[in-house]
Every structure is written in C-alpha cells, then in structure tokens.
C-alpha cells in the first residue's frame, strides 16, 4: 500500500511498568475511515496521541503523511486535525471566537480565515449559533464545533477520539454523515469508538484488546474469517417469545458452539450436524411463533471471539 497516509510499525508506549500500547502496526490509506475499537483503557487514545505528536512512543514508529511523528511532531501538527474525547474548546468564547482562534493558531491570513470559516460552517451547519458561547451548545453541536475547529486549516488527516460518546442518536448519525462527506473529499480519518454499528460503517477497522491490536481489516473480510465461522458451523438468528429462557436451554446443547442474546432474538453458532429446526424445537418447545434464519457474523461476534482467543493465548503463556 503505497498511498498509506498513516503507518505505524511496532508502536509501543509504556507508562512506568504499564504497557498502554504494545507493538501496534497498521496502515491507513487516503480517504479511508479507519475505526479503532476496543474497551475503555485498551490504549486507543494513547495511539491517537502518539500519532498527533503529543506523546512520544516508547518504541516503534508512527508515520503520518510521510513524516515520522516522533522526529518531526511540529511538521505533522500543521496537516492534521484532532477532535478529542472530551469537549476541549473554550466554553466562555463564542463559536466564532473559537473558530477564529484556531484559524489564527494555524497562521491563516484574514482572507483565508474568512474563506475557511465559510467552508466549515457550511459543512457543519453552525451558522445559526455563531454568536452563542460554546459552553451553551448542546452535546451534538459541541462536537460539530470541535470538528469545525479541527477542520479550519483544511487538514489532510483527521483524528477523532470517541467523537460520538454521550451524544444523542440523531446527532450521532448526523456526525457520521459529516464524516462520510469529509472522506468523500479525500480526508483520511482515524476514529475511535466503542459502538459496533459505527465500526460497521468504517472502511477498515482495528480491534485493540489489552494494548494489542488483535484484529485488522475491512469489516466484511473480518466477518468472513474462518476463525469466526469455522468449517461445519453456521450462524442462525432465532426469533422466539421467551429468548432468555431459550438461551439457557441452548447453552446445554453440545452442538451449540456459542449463543448470545441479540435484542429480542438469539444468535447461535451451530454445528451443521444439528438441524436448526430441531434446535428450535428443543429450545423453544410449543412456540408457534418460533422462527429461524441463517445470518452472517456481526463485527461484535468477531471481536468477542478474538478477545476470547487472545485471553486464552495469554493464559497459556502464563501457564507455560
């Protein structure tokens, strides 16, 4: 991949004895939306901070736009934008003042400032709120403002650290629409999240578990992975009146490799040796509404499976 905009190689960061990021390598190509997933404290923010040049890697390299971030952090900073996890604009300044401040920080001239402000305001729809204090905006609009500030200098790469945490579903969807629009304009994005539906929207995803990158690739490729749906098995979705009771029953059937609740349905990974209709008869007896259909693995399935495999591997290492 020669058009890689972000490349990391063996990226590692330790804080004292704790390893926050361990040997993480990935590449993100131009215009991609790379989703970095993982539980809280798995090291996602630390990776972003290293790539933004504010945290030095202990080992390994991070290259953004062809520039090594640990060698030339200041050069990288001009060409990237960063939306942090918590709202970090000036609550006591207005929307306009915040935008103008960041424009000046990036050294935009008065003419450039006006032009770029027009562009990001049109993009984010902040027009009606220009004179409002940033602290008085609602969560979704705060994030739009943060995005607008991060975009004011027309960066080629955008880092977003859980941009949708704590905002309502409508605002969340609108923000993602914005991100797609930016990607369409050629902006490369690295987004961390722990919403699985957001992960499905990314062009590429990486899953961080206990500081290590354990899954990497396009969502559909990950789902098609042989480990996720092994040979002679098939995933089914079972709709029934009492899924909780059925789940308990399903877990006692040897042919059921895995079973989880999914809304008001059950997802099971079943050996082909057992007929799915037979399974339904066993776990939802006398249920006329019971229904079964084959489904594809979800990203959540992928990550659950890989986390377990990783945990087992670590357990083995500890034993030996």
């Amino acid at each position, binding site marked *: 991949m020669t058009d890689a905009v972000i490349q990391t190689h063996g990226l590692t960061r330790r804080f004292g004895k704790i390893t926050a990021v361990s040997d993480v390598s990935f590449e993100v190509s131009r215009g991609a939306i790379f989703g970095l997933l993982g539980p809280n404290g798995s090291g996602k923010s630390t990776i972003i901070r290293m790539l933004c040049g504010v945290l030095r890697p202990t080992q390994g390299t991070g290259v953004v736009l062809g520039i090594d971030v640990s060698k030339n952090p200041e050069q990288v900073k001009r060409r990237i934008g960063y939306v942090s996890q918590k709202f970090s604009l000036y609550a006591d*300044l207005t929307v306009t003042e915040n935008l103008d401040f960041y424009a000046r920080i990036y050294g935009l001239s008065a003419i450039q400032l006006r032009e770029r402000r027009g562009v990001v305001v049109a993009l984010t729809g902040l027009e009606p709120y220009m004179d409002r204090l940033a602290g008085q905006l609602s969560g979704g609009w705060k994030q739009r403002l943060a995005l607008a500030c991060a975009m004011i200098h027309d960066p080629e790469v955008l880092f977003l650290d859980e941009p949708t945490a704590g905002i309502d579903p409508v605002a969340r969807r609108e923000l993602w629409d914005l991100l797609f629009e930016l990607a369409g304009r050629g902006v490369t994005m690295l987004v961390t999240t722990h919403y699985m539906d957001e992960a499905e929207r990314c062009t590429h995803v990486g899953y961080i578990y206990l500081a290590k990158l354990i899954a990497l690739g396009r969502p559909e490729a990950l789902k098609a992975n042989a480990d996720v749906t092994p040979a002679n098995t098939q995933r089914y979705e079972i709709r029934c009146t009492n899924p909780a009771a059925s789940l308990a029953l399903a877990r006692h059937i040897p042919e059921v490799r895995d079973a989880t609740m999914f809304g008001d349905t059950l997802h099971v990974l079943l050996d082909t040796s057992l007929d799915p209709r037979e399974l339904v008869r066993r776990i939802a007896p006398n249920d006329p509404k019971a229904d079964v259909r084959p489904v594809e693995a979800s990203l959540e399935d992928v990550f659950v499976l890989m986390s377990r495999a990783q945990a087992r591997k670590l357990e083995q290492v500890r034993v030996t």
Partner: protein
Amino acid sequence: MNGFLAILLKELAHIRRDRGTILFAFVIPAVQLSIFGYAIDVTIENIPLVVFDLDGRQESRRLVEAFVNTRTFKVVERVTDSESLHRALNAGRAKAGLIVPADYSNRLLRGEQAQVQMLIDGSDSQIATTALNAANLLTINMSLGRAKIVAEQAQRAVSRDPAGRPVLPIEARPRLLYNPDLESSHFFVPGLIGIILQLVLLFLTSFSIVRERERGTLEQLFVTPVGRGGLLFGKLVPYACMAFGELCIVLTLMVAVFGVNINGSLLLLFSLSGIFIVTVLGLGLLISTIATTQLGALQMAFMVMLPSVLLSGFMFPRSEMPTIIYWVTFAIPATYYIEILRGVILRGADLVDLFPHFIGLCCCCAVILTLSLARFRKQLD
C-alpha cells in the same frame, strides 16, 4: 513565537468575560492594601493596666498619672485588694499591674528608697518588653527629676548647661530618618505591595494554565503547531500587563491614603518591579507544570506564599532569624523585592544602594525561569 497573537487575543477575551479575574486583579488588592495597611500596626500603646494603690496620696497619684501620660499604658481598673489585681491579670483584662505600697509617700519624704511593684503578663513578649522598658524608663526619669532638685539645693551637680542649671552628663540626640513619626504603616505598606502583587499574580497565572490543562484545552493546543514561546508569551503577557496596572493602583493608594511618599526614582521602581513580575510569572508557570488540577495549584501557590509572607522580612526582621532560616530567606524572591520597595519608596535609594538586592532578584528570576521553561513542554508526558 508562532501563534502569539492568537493566544493573546483569546486570553484577553477570557479576561473580559470573567469578572472574577478583573475583581481579583484590581479590586481585591486595593481592598487588601487598605485593610491590612491599617490593621498591621506594631507600635504598642495603651497596654491595659490595673492599679492597686495602697498609698493614695499626692506622690502616688502623680506616679500613676505619669504611667498614663506615657500613652504606653491605660488604666483599665483600680482595685483595693491584691486578690482582685491578680484576677484582672488572670482574666486577661489587664496586661500589667502596678502595686504602690502604703508607705510610698512617707519613704520618699524621708529620703529613703520607695519601691513599687510591677506585674507584667509575659505571654506576649512584645507587649511585655514594651511595658517593662516603659516602666523602667519612667521610674528612672522620675528619680532623675528628684535628684536634680536635690543637686540644685546642694549647689553641686555632675554637669551643668551654659546657663548653670544642672543637667545630665551625657545626652543622646537621636534623629529619626525616613520615617520620623515612626508610623508603622510607612514600613509595612511598601512591603505589603510586594506581597499582594505576588499573591494575585501567582494565582492568576498558575490558574490560567492549569485550568486549560484540567479542561483538556491545553492538549488540544498541543496538537496545533502553536510555538512554545507563542503559547507562553501569549498567556503570560496579559497577566504581566495586569500586574503593572495593579502596581499603579496600589502605589497610588499608598501615597493618597497612607501618605507614604515615593522618595526614589519611579522609573527604577517600575523597572525592578518588572523583574519581580517576570519572576512571579515564572513561579506561576512552574506551579502549572507540576499541578494538574486547580486545587493542586491552589495548594502549591499557598506553599509558595507562606514563606514569602513570614520569612521575606515583610513581617519579622530577617536579622533576628536563626542562621539556617536566614540563609533560606535568600532563596525567596520577595525578600529582595521588599527590600527594593522599602529602599526606593522610604529611603530614596538608587540602583547603587540596591545593587545586592537587584542581583539577588535577577538570580532568582533566572533560576525560576530556566526551571519552568525547561519543564513546560508541548508534550503530555
């Protein structure tokens, strides 16, 4: 210096929006100076005195009158038994007790030594020392007065003045320089200016940076190409300007309200104040590189303020301090600045007179700035 103007404009917008900053920078210092300038008064007068006069005749009444006339003492109670006298002292109503024996007048008339007893509450050493000295001086003067009369009658004196009257053989002729009325406000107010300036500036600067760290806006700034110099100067210059404004206000108050005139060069005063202001900005910056929360900054600022108040010579003379503490006082920037303030304002000292303090302040400034600039990085670790 990248981004200096952007940070400066933003900082001014913050200050404009935040009434608290304006209040803290200009109004509070003026109020503090007025209150503390009046409150801190070290001349001890009107020490409450309880009198137990067993004699009660003219000579003893004259003695008690003499005590009151010194203005050091004020009679708060006259008692008729020794039990009540001790009660007044125990209860703290009186700090000194005077007992005149029944034969006081008789003895004086007979030409014998008359004795009066002074009981002094020693718990506050300053008050006790003053009371002791005043009582001693008073009785010596009264004794000399009587001796003079005798000398005149005897036609024999140790020494005489040109008119032939007997006088004391040695007379000291003290002249009080710089503060002839011994107004303690003249001594304290200039020092207070230094303390207030440091207090306000230290809190404002350390808070302004730690607040950004706490709210995450500093991290956001680190991700931008803003230069370290631009960031620091942009943040500190507005506060330096405010400090100068504040200095003007408190100096005006000092002259107008307390009648303390600036005897030395105003230019020198402002130039040296500039060095002190930069030093305190550096201290504030240093605190902000260590503290991660505003509460932490508050605690650290207090840790810096206490020695500045107690050991800088503002409250207590440094020459009285134990050797080790005395050496410590050289590490406190306020020590030099207070010396400079007192020198320029009260004694009209010039740079030559103040050279050691000037050098001391410069050294403090250099050390603190180097340390804080080295610690302040555009990095999170």
